[in-house]
Every structure is written in structure tokens, then in C-alpha cells.
């Protein structure tokens, strides 16, 4: 009975760890799909325009975005070598990384919120290895709730 109890504890600990790793894998799969989708979109746009976009109209990954209201006054101090910046805001701001921007652009096919059209699901499945497709199918229905996927 004591050994049973120990194994029960070990089982619970392992289930928690698997749940966390599955959530991390889910996030990585989203990133993979978003990156590949972005590359495909940019490649098609450049082929149609027959030229790359003007350098001052794009921002390469990785980046972060600070967004704040239009009314906010932003005071900025920069060191001479541009190694250090100090921003003062008189109102609230938010900070987002490039993955959040790609998700908002729809590059993750809506998988991040479990809202994926059949066409989007088809695109998403084409951007991951076959072994990971079961995850994509589950994610399309909503956040993965079961601890681990069999199959």
C-alpha cells in the first residue's frame, strides 16, 4: 500500500510534467506554422512584385512591440552608442513579442484560439511533419485538454 501511494505521487508528478511539455510543444508548433506561413507569404508577395519590399517598410524578426494609446506622451532618452534607451510614458502601454504579432496577423491559422477553418487546417497540417499532425488537429478544436495524445 505504501509503494502504491509512492507510485500514485510519481504518476501525478509525471502527468503534470507531461501536461506542461505538451503545452510547450503546442506553443512551438504554433511558432513553426506561423514562421513557415510568414515565409511563404513574403515569398509569394516578392514573386508577384518581382522585387523585395523597400527596406524601410519592413521589420525583420525577432522584434518586440510596445503599443500605447495615441494620446500617450512618450519621452525617450537614448545613450550615444544606442546601447541604452529609457522611455517614460504618461499612460499605460503593452509589450508584445513578434510571435504575438504573427498570431494577430493570422499566420498561425487561428490555431492559437482554437478557431481554424477547414482550409486553414489544411494549410497548417501541410506545414508540420506528419508525426505532429494529430496535435494540429486537436489544437484546431481548442486548447489541448487531454494530458497526452495517443497515436
Amino acid at each position, binding site marked *: 500500500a505504501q509503494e502504491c501511494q509512492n507510485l500514485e505521487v510519481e504518476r501525478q508528478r509525471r502527468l503534470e510534467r*507531461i501536461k506542461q*511539455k505538451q503545452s510547450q510543444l503546442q506553443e512551438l508548433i504554433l511558432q513553426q506554422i506561423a514562421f513557415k506561413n510568414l*515565409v511563404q507569404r*513574403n515569398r509569394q508577395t516578392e514573386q508577384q512584385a518581382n522585387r523585395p519590399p523597400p527596406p524601410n517598410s*519592413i*521589420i525583420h524578426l525577432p522584434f518586440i512591440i510596445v503599443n500605447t494609446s495615441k494620446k500617450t506622451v512618450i519621452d525617450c532618452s537614448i545613450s550615444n552608442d544606442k546601447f541604452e534607451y529609457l522611455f517614460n510614458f504618461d499612460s499605460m502601454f503593452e509589450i508584445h513579442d513578434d510571435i504575438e*504579432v*504573427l498570431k494577430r496577423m493570422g499566420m498561425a491559422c487561428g490555431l492559437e484560439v482554437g478557431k481554424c477553418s477547414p482550409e486553414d487546417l489544411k494549410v497548417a497540417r501541410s506545414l508540420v511533419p506528419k508525426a505532429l499532425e494529430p496535435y494540429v488537429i486537436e489544437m484546431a478544436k481548442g486548447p489541448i485538454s487531454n494530458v497526452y495524445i495517443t497515436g
Partner: protein
Amino acid sequence: HRASNRLMELKNELEDLEQKECMLDQQKFWVEQSIRNTTEDCSDLTYVNHEDICNCFSGHNLLAVRAPSGTQLDVPIPKAVQNSPAKYQIHLKSVNGPIDVVLLNKL
């Protein structure tokens, strides 16, 4: 008898969980490797347009920050002071190279 049955069940399930965890670790490694391949092999195509970003945060002022990996970003916790306007701050400090900031969405 019930305890020994349960013991056997648990041992089998723990073995199964161990396999699942190893599989997850392997899959995470694959996906991380694939992401690295994509961003490195197609680095000239991993960009977004200013318009993309403005559409994601319409009606806002945006600061797009590009900085070397590991650049430290500190956000002090604001403190309410009577009769004094609120103040929020971001402090960026890099050790590996200059930081580039672009102001977007400013009409």
C-alpha cells in the same frame, strides 16, 4: 489483493507515461530544430511590413524594437503618488550591440 492489482496498474501506467514523455521531448527537439532551420535558412524572408504591425494594433502608437538577444528590458512597478500624474517606464540595456527603435503609426 486490491493493492497488488493497483500496484501493477500503476507500474504499467508509469512505464507508458515515461514513453510518452520521451516522445514529447523528442518532438519538442524536432520542432525547435525546424524553427531554427526556418528562421536561419529563410532569414531574408522572415519580416513583417509596418502595415502588418499597424493593422494588429490599430489606433495605437507603436514602438518596434529590434535588439540583440539577451538585451535586458526592465519595467519598474508604478507607484501611485497623490496629486501626481501616473508614470510608466521602460528601460532597455544591451551589452552585445545597438538597439534599433522605430516609431510606427504616428500620423
